[in-house]
């Protein structure tokens, strides 16, 4: 069913197929909808210990295991595992590849279907409709229902994953006992949209992009996608982190040159870019960055963010990181204040870290203690 695009090797992802499909926020209906996912731990008899993990822009469902494409460890192994904050001995953890992603869920890289659900023998590519964060969440809800889980103990995620957490809490409040939006915001800022647009412009400028039909000749816009990743990667780090890692160290170049990397930070970024294109689809990147840009929860609720959560019984844990300038603490605090205005049960901490936005993925003991304590407190309350 999958139309193969070089240079991705074929991987059999664990998937759930929903023949009825779904109507997207943009008005288009796609059918069928496929959700690729992974689970960790065991669902208890009461089906009360399930936690949904929502991944970020370039993450996927391989949270805590060797990645089938890159062979690298899962992206959140610092947090997920036996005895860790997302304790696989206590909770049943689910992570789904987002709608529009490229790790097996319905998205630009998967085979296109017509309105009647008939396969068309070519990938969606740029014909894939605009999706929103809420569309991603509705697709995940199908999976959660499919797995027979009446209520999630928690929904947890950082960055774009945090946006999904907020959308879950607003759209399906009765299904979410606890919500942990981390290093995120209730809307995507103009600055963040601007950085995304630089990345998209780099992809569009690559001659191999061919207006999104690069798959026809089995090629990819590797240069453009790589530059997009390089720009984005800078926003994930802090000035302190870059200084600590690389400073102004040279790569041993004897003379000034414009033809090769002079500074270590340059070759680091280039490496990030070149490895990224081997696992991520350019059209998916365009689709998902757009979904993030559209995200504005207050706008979805008449301009009043608190209205999105009024009357909620969900318990919230909001966390930000002091050196994160992509999703700064001020945006988390605005979210906390809106939750307070909605009389929601909220915890909030800003973790002191010099690691920038990426801190939520890294070894941050204070953050892990707070997240673990919050989840354990929620689990205690429902008897898990």
């Amino acid at each position, binding site marked *: 069913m999958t139309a193969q695009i070089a240079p991705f090797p074929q991987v059999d992802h664990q998937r759930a197929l929903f023949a009825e499909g779904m109507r997207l926020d943009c008005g288009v209906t796609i059918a069928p909808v496929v959700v690729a996912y992974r689970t960790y731990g065991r669902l208890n008899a009461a089906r009360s210990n399930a936690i949904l993990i929502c991944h970020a822009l370039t993450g996927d469902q391989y949270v805590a295991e060797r990645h089938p494409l890159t062979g690298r460890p899962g992206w959140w192994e610092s947090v997920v595992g036996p005895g860790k904050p997302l304790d696989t001995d206590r909770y049943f953890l689910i992570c789904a590849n987002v709608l529009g992603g490229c790790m097996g869920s319905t998205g630009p890289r998967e085979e296109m279907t017509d309105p009647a659900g008939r396969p068309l023998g070519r990938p969606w590519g740029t014909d894939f409709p605009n999706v929103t964060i809420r569309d991603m969440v509705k697709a995940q809800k199908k999976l959660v229902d499919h797995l027979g889980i009446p209520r999630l103990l928690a929904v947890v995620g950082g960055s774009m994953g945090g946006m999904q957490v907020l959308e879950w809490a607003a759209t399906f409040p009765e299904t979410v006992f606890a919500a942990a939006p981390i290093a995120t915001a209730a809307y995507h800022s103009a600055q963040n949209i601007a950085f995304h647009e630089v990345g998209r412009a780099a992809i569009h400028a690559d001659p191999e992009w061919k207006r999104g039909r690069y798959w026809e000749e089995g090629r990819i816009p590797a240069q453009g996608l790589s530059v997009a990743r390089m720009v984005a990667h800078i926003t994930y780090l802090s000035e302190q982190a870059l200084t600590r890692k690389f400073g102004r160290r040279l790569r041993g170049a004897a003379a000034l040159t414009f033809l090769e990397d002079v500074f270590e930070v340059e070759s680091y970024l280039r490496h990030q870019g070149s490895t990224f294109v081997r696992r991520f689809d350019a059209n998916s990147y365009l689709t998902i960055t757009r979904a993030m840009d559209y995200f504005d929860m207050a706008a979805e609720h008449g301009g009043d963010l608190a209205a999105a959560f009024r*009357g909620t*019984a969900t*318990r919230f*844990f*909001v966390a930000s990181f002091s050196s994160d300038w992509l999703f700064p603490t001020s945006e988390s*605090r605005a979210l*906390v*204040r*809106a939750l*307070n*205005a*909605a*009389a929601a*049960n*909220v*915890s*909030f*901490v*800003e*973790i*002191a870290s010099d690691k920038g936005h990426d801190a939520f993925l890294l070894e941050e003991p*204070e953050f892990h*203690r*707070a997240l*673990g*304590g*919050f989840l*354990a*407190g*929620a689990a*205690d309350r429902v008897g898990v």
Partner: protein
Amino acid sequence: MPDSPADLRPPLPRSEIRYVAKNMRLDLRLIAEMIPRGARVLDIGCGDGALLAHLTAEKAADARGIEIDMAAATQAVAAGLAVIQGDADHDLAFYPDGAFDYVVLSRTLQAVEKPREVLRQMLRIGRHAIVSFPNFGHWMVRWHLLAKGRMPMTSTWHRAWYETPNIHPCTIRDFFGLCALDGYVVEEWLAVDEHGLKAPWRRSPRLANLFGEQALFQLRRR
């Protein structure tokens, strides 16, 4: 909104209180005794959440906290308590009217930027406010200023004037004055010694103002 409506029974008479919380500051014990079962409580300046944990476990309260110190707030959150890092001056304005039955501010009023506004916010978002503060009218303070002509340094007021966070000290009579000015009903008040034990000055505000090291008030809107 919190799960259960507050039990609106008045607090037990002092003589009937036998429970003594362990590992909790004595003044917090007194405050805990003033709060009925099942109440919705906001503790401003909750520290590591000792009062919140007690109210949650022993009084089935829906207890939430605000703490200015990040390390203490993180510790409270890690203990599973609903605590946000924030402060009295800047965060109260965001809560809706009547969100809580009790809003608690212990030993913090003298350190906020705008005590009158903080008190107004407390009684906007809560039906009752419980406030404790060190009494600047204590005889030691008065004596210190009179005899030495320098800012008092006592066991309660022990930071030098140039580094104390206590920028708005007041006396018990001052506080009565503010309550009268803004029309708050003093439902209960008592003077407390440095360790949080009740001092026997209940009958006379003037004597309490001279001999009470701390004051504890419960207020409501008129």
